[in-house]
């Protein structure tokens, strides 16, 4: 499977305080970028439980805790660490830092319509790992 991915220059690393997250709006769709000190991680900014803004959560190791009902989302792969039985997950995006700027790799969206962007994001929740495999190959 081939899809158009692009690397996006997001912001200066200093704009995301240590162990905090910030929301970044790309084409009407929000991703949450976290500063974990030795690295930056990015996931979709929408908790699979009730849509809470993960960027506002408290970071716990390599995970973030949603501010609304304390679901715990792993920032590496978007899986749900708490509640333990939960199988849903959020999309996660590769990142890199160059010259003090945080970059994220994000699928290109043709539609500028936010509603359509939302649809694409939802479908991604279920296909992230597939996409990653495809990207790796």
């Amino acid at each position, binding site marked *: 499977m081939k899809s158009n991915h692009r690397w996006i220059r997001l912001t200066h690393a200093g704009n995301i305080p240590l162990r905090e997250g910030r929301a970044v*709006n790309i084409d009407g769709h929000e991703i949450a970028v976290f500063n974990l000190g030795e690295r930056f991680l990015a996931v979709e900014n929408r908790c699979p439980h009730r849509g809470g803004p993960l960027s506002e959560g408290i970071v716990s190791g390599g995970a973030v805790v949603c501010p609304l009902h304390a679901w715990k989302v792993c920032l590496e792969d978007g899986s749900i660490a708490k509640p333990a039985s939960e199988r849903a997950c959020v999309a996660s995006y590769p990142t890199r830092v160059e010259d003090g700027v945080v970059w994220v790799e994000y699928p290109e969206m043709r539609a500028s319509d936010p509603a359509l962007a939302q649809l694409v994001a939802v479908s991604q929740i279920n296909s992230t790992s597939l996409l990653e495999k495809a990207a790796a190959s």
Partner: protein
Amino acid sequence: MERLVLIGNGMAGIGCLEQILKHDSRFDVTVFGDETHVNYNRIMLSSVLAGEKSAEQIVMNDLEWYRRHEITLRLGARVTAIDREAQTVTSDDGGLTPYDKLIIATGSSPFIPPMEGTQRDGVFVFRTLDDTRALLERSGPGKKAVVIGGGLLGLEAARGLRVQGCEVTVVHLMSSLMERQLDGTGSALLKSQMERMGVKVLLSHSTAGITGNGKVEGVAFKGGAEIPADLIVIAAGIRPNADLARAAGINVNRGIVVDDHMQTSDRNIYAVGECVEHRGMCYGLVAPLLEQGKALAAAISGNKGAGFAPVVPATKLKIMGVEVFSAGAWDEAACNGETVRFEDPALGLYKKLVVRDNRLAGFILVGDTSESPRYLDMLHSGRDLAETRKHLLFPPPAEDAGQELAQLPDSHTVCGCMGVSKGAILEAILKDGVCTLAQLKETTRASTGCGSCTDLCKGLLKAAVPEFEEESAKVLCGCVPFSQEQLREMLRGQQLRSVQDVLDIYGNGHGCEVCKPALSYMLDMLWCGDHDEDRSARFINDRVHANIQKDGTFSVVPRMRGGVTTPDELRRIADVADKYNVRMVKVTGSQRIDLLGVKKADLPRVWEDLGMPSGQAYTKGVRMVKTCVGTEFCRFGVQDSTSTGIELERRLENLFTPHKVKMGVVGCPRNCAEATVKDIGMVGQDGSWQVVVGGAAGKTVRKADVLVTVETTEEALNACCLFFQYYREHANYLERTYDLVERIGIERIRRDTIYAPDAVKRSLLDRLSRSKALSSDAWLERHNPRTATQFVQIQPMETVTI
């Protein structure tokens, strides 16, 4: 069925009846009680007087209990005669009740010394619930109360009246307080402690009479001196109520004479409790009376055992920082014994052991009574101390903390109030499957008296029930496995000033949503802002000073002190609501206005346009002070609740607390602003304020406890501040005031706040003012954001397609 009549509905009588019901139920039981209440815990009357417990809370057997056991209860009916020939009793409600077996448990009456004026209005005794209620009605701040009698009961009455705000003087005939339980050194210590909490003590004063014209005005002493009084409590001792038995021709000395099986000179009539004389002794403490009840129950049920054996008298007293324990023959001169003693006046500690023939004959403990079980055991067992004598005062450190408990014999009394032995507790645990303290209380009654054996009970539960979990030992969370109390000590001792340092040194280095905000609070409380505040460790609400809603927008509640606002403020609020498309404007339950649906990016401008300080509605901090209009407008108001509430809010606002703190100030006892269900409340009365704490009307509903009653507004505000800082320093994170009050106990809180030594109070208030001076309105951060992106939405710099 045999007809059993019990005269007396008090602790001894009903305690005995409970035992009889355990043996068998072949009796058709009728109980007469001349009070109009069901059986209550008389030991706790002093707590009712002190406002710590309500009348309902000291009930031991409710009506349902009587119904369940099919007991005919005749309340408010006094038995006036016993006809032993016809086997009937006559009661003053006109009835004649036949019996096969009769138990007399008429208790005792206060002894009123013969003197002038005891009939005057304002003279009380302190014996029943009705006496207590009458006293409560009459007492109040600034009232001059005189307690005649410096024994156990007198001192408890003095304590209760002091808590109600009275100026209390204890007048005692003898040259030292509690002279039957304490020697000179012990009672001098007790006296100085009583004086420290503001009770005057007059020793060697013989009362000549009570002066006044209809109403009480003062107490006159032999020798001519006189002191003024608004109310007088006579607590000069008790006398067994034996007249009924005497009139019926039953053998009576001082009390009703009984044998070891509590049988009187009439074989169908038994007696139990304070009305009884056994081998020349009358008892006034609960434990031996319950023992008597057991012996009686066994005998009347046909299971005669060994019977009641005389016990060594032991007295326990615990009032605001004064713990006293006295047992056995403590007067070395009288019993020809040797004394081993330890004394530290600065710490208020005193320990005296009297040894005769290498056996413990008696002891006195003042200040710390935790060792009383050890000494009581030596006393009761009469063990030879030759080998262990050098460890008498200070035992060698136990190798295993539980060992001491394990070594106690099964016969050892754990709960002295209810007479429950270690064996009985273990039986309840092992046979009845008891595994919590609440169940233990219900099954055995252990720890339902004065509560001082709670630790022992918990220790036994811990030893015998593997799954027993003691709440206080709970750790904060898996990331930093220490209790919050330990953590506070560690942060203070190690001078740690950042959450990450704590996690790196004592935890897993990561932390989570449970421990990070808790540690953040502890650091703020300890260092008052003089530390590295790590916003990443705080909940989003505390990063942006607004309350996150389900859709990711925020709510904004400006501070509106005392619930008072102005047309100008309201206009600005309305303009803000229009300008920023606020989705809902809502009047809150806290007399404030909530603007709902504000975007994070708009917050700084919303605050600027409002021009009002943060109401801290989003955080664990000082929420509000709800007020009524008080003397300013209300025709019933007796105190200026509005300005007082505003002042209280000003003094505490902007501070963080373990959980939210809601307050209320009302101008009269009608309590329109519901101060008695707030964390801190002030209830205005004519000429005084009642300060109440630990109330709740949310998930938990709880009536607040009275902390203190004081005359001036400044004193009341001061009491609020003392409690507030105490709560900040002692509560665990997310522990509301009502949990703290229940965990620590209002009495200890009073002792550690309003009745603490001046130096302690001053340092509590100093720490509070230091925190206050370093705190500020969080919304001022609009001028000086913590980071460039605190409120700003990040936009991508550019996009590059690969």
